[in-house]
C-alpha cells in the first residue's frame, strides 16, 4: 500500500495549454465552470441587494395601499410596457450574442452585442424621459415633491378620486421606493452598457470567438439578471390596481 499522500500526479503537460487557461486551473473545463459559478454567486448577492428594497416595498405597500395605487397611476403605462419590451428584446439579443460566441461567429457576435447596447440605451433613454416627467410633476421625494396631484387630481386624471391629505403624503414613500428601485436598476443597466462597450471592442478583435467565451457567457448572466429584476419591478411599480 502506498500511504504517501503527496503522490506524484502525471503533469497535465501533455495537454496543450490554450493561452487563456490561467496557471492555477488544471483544465479549461474547470476554469469555465469556476468562472460561471463565481458569476452565479455574484448574482446571489445581487438578489439579496434588491431583496432589501423588495422587503421595504412589500411592507409599505400593505400599509399605504391607496397611496401606492395613486402613485402608480401617475406612471405612464405605455412607457413602462415599452421599456419592458425593450429590455426583453435586449435579453434576447444578448442570448443570441452568447449563441454566436458559442458558434465562434465573430461578426454576428459583434452585431448582437451592438444591438444589446442600443436597446440598453433606449431603455435608459425612456427611463430618463420618465424621470424628467416626475421632476416636472413634483414627484421627486426630498428634492422636489408636492402632494398637489393627489389631493387635487388634475384634469388629466379626472377619474382619479382625490386622496385624503394624510394618505397623499404617503405617496412620498411610494416615490422614494420607485426611485430607489428603478434607480438601482438603472445603475446596473449603466454598468452593464459600459461593460458591453468594452466587450464589443474586444469581440471585434476576436477575443471571444477563439474558444474562450466565458466572459461573454458570464456577462450574459448579469444582463439577464438585470432583466429579471425589471420583470418584477414593472408589475410592482406600474401595474398596481390599474382597473380602478
Amino acid at each position: 500500500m502506498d500511504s504517501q499522500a503527496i503522490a506524484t500526479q502525471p503533469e497535465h503537460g501533455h495537454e496543450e495549454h490554450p493561452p487563456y487557461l490561467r496557471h492555477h486551473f488544471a483544465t479549461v473545463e474547470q476554469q469555465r465552470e469556476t468562472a460561471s459559478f463565481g458569476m452565479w454567486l455574484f448574482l446571489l448577492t445581487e438578489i439579496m441587494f434588491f431583496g432589501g428594497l423588495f422587503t421595504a416595498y412589500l411592507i409599505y405597500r400593505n400599509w399605504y395601499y391607496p397611496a401606492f395605487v395613486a402613485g402608480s397611476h401617475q406612471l405612464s403605462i405605455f412607457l413602462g410596457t415599452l421599456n419592458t419590451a425593450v429590455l426583453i428584446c435586449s435579453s434576447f439579443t444578448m442570448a443570441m450574442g452568447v449563441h454566436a460566441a458559442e458558434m465562434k461567429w465573430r461578426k454576428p457576435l459583434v452585431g448582437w452585442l451592438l444591438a444589446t447596447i442600443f436597446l440598453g440605451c433606449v431603455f435608459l433613454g425612456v427611463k430618463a424621459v420618465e424621470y424628467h416627467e416626475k421632476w416636472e410633476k413634483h414627484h421627486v421625494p426630498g428634492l422636489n415633491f408636492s402632494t398637489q396631484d393627489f389631493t387635487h387630481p388634475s384634469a388629466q386624471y379626472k377619474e382619479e378620486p382625490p386622496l385624503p391629505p394624510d394618505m397623499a403624503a404617503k405617496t412620498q414613500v411610494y416615490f422614494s421606493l420607485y426611485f430607489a428601485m428603478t434607480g438601482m436598476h438603472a445603475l446596473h443597466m449603466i454598468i452593464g452598457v459600459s461593460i458591453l462597450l468594452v466587450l464589443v471592442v474586444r469581440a471585434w478583435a476576436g477575443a471571444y470567438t477563439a474558444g474562450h467565451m466565458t466572459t461573454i457567457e458570464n456577462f450574459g448572466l448579469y444582463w439577464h439578471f438585470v432583466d429579471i429584476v425589471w420583470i418584477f419591478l414593472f408589475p410592482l411599480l406600474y401595474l398596481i390596481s390599474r382597473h380602478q
Partner: protein
Amino acid sequence: MSTATIVKLPPQETASLPKRSYLNNEYGLKSWLLTGDHKRIAILYLISITFFFFIGGAMAGLIRLELLTPQSDLMAMDTYNKVFTMHGIIMVFLFLVPSVPATIGNFLIPIMVGAKDLAFPKVNLLSWYLYIFAGCFTLAALILGGVDTGWTFTTPLSTHYLNTHVITAGLGIFIAGFSSIFTGLNFIVTIHRMRAPGMTWFRLPLFVWSNYAASILMVLGTPVLAITLVLVILERAIGIGVFDPAKGGDPLLFQHLFWFYSHPAVYIMILPGMGVISEVISTFSRKRVFGYTAVAFSSVAIAVFGFFVWAHHMFIMGVSNYSALVFSLLTMLVAVPSAIKIFNWAATLYKGSITFETPMLYAFGFMGLFTIGGLTGVFLGSLGMDIHLTETYFIVAHFHFVMVGGMLMAFLSGIHFWWPKMTGRMYPEALSKLAALITFIGFNLTFFPQFIVGYLGMPRRYASYPPEFQVLNVLSTAGATVLGVGYLLPMIYLTWSLKHGKIAGNNPWQATGLEWQIQSPPLTENFVETPIVDHEAYDYEWLAHQTEHEVQTVG
C-alpha cells in the same frame, strides 16, 4: 519521543530558509501591490488589519481612560461618542470581519484544499484594494471631524439628527462590504471547484468548513447591509422617505434590514476563529477532532440558523411581541451548535498526547472565554432577561467575550500556529506564552467587571456615569492596560522574529494538514505537483508513516 515539545527544529547551524519561496519570488513594491498570489495578498491584509486594529485599539484605550472617572472629563461627550463610534466601525468592519478569513484564510484555504491559488486571484486583489479604500473613507470620516452615529447607524438619528460625516463613514462600510463579499465569493468557489484530486468534502480540514460557512453568510448577508446603507445615504443626502417616521416610513425597518446582516456578521466573525481552534486543538493533542462531522455540520448549522435570529437585537425596540417569541425560540436553537463545538473540542483532548505551545494556550483561552460569551448570549436571547440586560454594559461584556475573548484569541492562536508556515521562522516561545497569559488575565480583568456593572444597569455608550459604578470601571480600565500590553507584545516579537526567529522547517508542529507538507514559506505555486489526497484530515497515523524528506521541498 520524550521531548517536552513536538517542535523539531532543524539544527540551527545547517538550517536555512528555502532558496525560492513566495516571499522572494519577486521583489519590489510593484510585485506586492499588483500580486495575484493569495499568500502575498494575505500578508497585505495582515499588515492592513493590524494597522486598523491598533487604531481601533487606541480608540478603545481612550474610551477606557474616559471611563476611569464618573464625569465626562477627559473629553467632551460628543468626542466620546465619536471615539466609540470609530472604535466600533473600525473593529467590526475593518478588523473582525476580515481578520481570520482575509489573512489566515486567504493564505491557507487554497493550500488546504490543494490548489495553486484562489479561484479568482484578481478579485482577491480587488478585495484588498476595496478594503483599503474603505479604510481610507473611514479614516477620512475620522480626520474630517468624526462621525457619532454608533456603529449601528440607527435611523432617524443617523439620517436627520446629526451633522457629522455619516455619509463618508457609510460609504466606507459599503465598500468594506464589497471587499468581504469578494473574499467570501472567492472562498466558496475555491472550495467547490479547486479541490485537489481525492480531497472530498469530508477530508477537508475543519478550518475550511468553517470558512465556507462564514463565506455563505458574507455572500448572502452583506448585500442587504449595502442596500440599507444606500437608503440611509439617500435619505440623508436628498431626503427620500423610507425610514423617516415623519414621512410615513418605519424606523424599525432599518433595524430589520441592518440586523439581517449584522447578526450573521457576528457569525462571519466567529466561525473562522472556530476553524482555527479545531486545527490547533487537533494538532497539539495529536488526534483527529472528536466528532469531525458534527463539528463540520455545526458550522453550517450556525450559518443557516444565523439568518433566522436577527430580531433578537430588537426585543425591546417595538417589534411585535409574537415575533419576538419566534426570534427568541430560534435564538435558543442557534446556541446549540456552538455548545456542540465546545464539547467536541474538549472531547478531542481525551486520550490525546497534549502539549502546551502558545497556539494551544490561546485555544484554551478561547474555549473558556467563548463559553462565557456564548452562555451570556443565552441570557440575552431570553426575552424577559433581555429587557433588563440589553443596551447595558452586560451586552458590551457579552460581545467582547465572543469577539475579543473568542475571535481575537483565535486569531492570535492562528497567527502563532501558522507563523512558521507564513514566514519560515518560529516566534519566541517563552515570550509568546507570557503574552498569552497577559492577554488572558488582562481580558478577564477588563470585561468581567462589565457583566456586573451591566447588571447594575450602567448603559452602554455613556461618557459619564453614576459614581457607584466607578470601582468596577476602574478595574476594567486597569485590565485594558494589561490587555494593551498583551497585544503589543506579539506585535513586537513577531516583527522581531521575521529576522531573528529560529528557522522553522516544513512541519514544526508535526501537523497533518496539506499546508504542513510543503516547504515554509511556501512556493508561489504552493505545490510542486498537484497533491493527491488519500487520507482523512487529522490522520496522525498516516503522518507517522511519512518520513521527513518525503515532504516537498525545493532546495
